[in-house]
């Protein structure tokens, strides 16, 4: 089992996590736990045994620690990553639904407004857009996040 320290990657550091590496995995795990939408190389991770970690620890405070071993890495690849992707796909579908329905409602509102006899019907005032979409908030990402935090023994430092 290896403990990874996850740091905020400094702009222009020239360092990125190697694609497919455990360091990259540790950073993605940190992002899932924090539930923040952050760019790909926002974080950089080093194994604790790595001399970089000590040096980085001196330079900056680590944001997270993440425990990864072969079994957990396999669980991440085979189960958790597909779940996070599908959970994000649900969020994307909600976002797409919202924007397309707002656009259609605005077109409908305009059609009423342009008419002579029905201009007093205000579509946007009658359609409960926010009420409907408040009910569409979905919690699976939160569920995943909590379990990921537990499985990978993630510690958030600040």
């Amino acid at each position, binding site marked *: 089992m290896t403990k990874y320290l996850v740091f905020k990657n400094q702009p222009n550091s020239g360092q990125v996590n190697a694609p497919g590496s455990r360091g990259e995995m540790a950073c993605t795990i940190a992002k899932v736990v924090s539930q923040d939408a952050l760019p790909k190389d926002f974080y950089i991770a080093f194994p604790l045994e790595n001399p970089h970690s000590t040096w980085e620890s001196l330079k900056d405070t680590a944001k997270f620690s993440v425990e990864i071993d072969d079994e957990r890495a396999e669980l991440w690849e085979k189960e958790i990553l597909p*779940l996070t992707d599908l*959970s994000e796909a*649900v969020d994307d579908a909600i976002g797409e639904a919202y924007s397309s329905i707002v656009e259609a409602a605005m*077109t409908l509102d305009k059609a009423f407004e342009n008419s002579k006899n029905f201009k007093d019907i205000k579509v946007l005032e009658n359609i409960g857009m926010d009420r409907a979409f408040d009910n569409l908030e979905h919690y*699976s990402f939160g569920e995943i996040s909590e379990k990921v935090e537990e499985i990978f023994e993630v510690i958030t430092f600040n």
Partner: protein
Amino acid sequence: MSKYLVITRSTKSQAIHTAGSVEETVCEIAKNLLHFRGPADGLMAIPADTKIATFAALKDEALCSIEVNDKTLATWRNDVTAIEDAINSFQSTRDHAENLLDRALADLDEAYESSSGFNDYTPSNDISVYGALDQLGANDLEYNFQQALREMYKFNPLKVVPM
């Protein structure tokens, strides 16, 4: 104000209303308000003060009566068609969004169910896509618009519409 009775056109009938005529527009209005599933030219509009109309009424053939004047005909041609198109477009956008969401949620449910560590949770239990989008109230809007049209054209349903 002119009153018309609307009947189903006989499949054998060769006569159709002239394009742009009042009768043709009355059939379009009737199709809409009756929720008639066939095309508008599957209907026939007959001025109510004619013998044919009396005969149709006696034979219990009239589906509805509708009253129009120049102003309400212009409203139909200029306003209602555009609004109906926008309502249909809104409804189909909502249906499309429901399908997308439902499919994305079903995929997520399936992935949860087949996982070993997460199968005790079913995401769709926390969301009702159909219930949520019903909250949009678009059905009420369409109903109110239909009521306004029924009043404007003094729509009087006389018989159950054949499907």
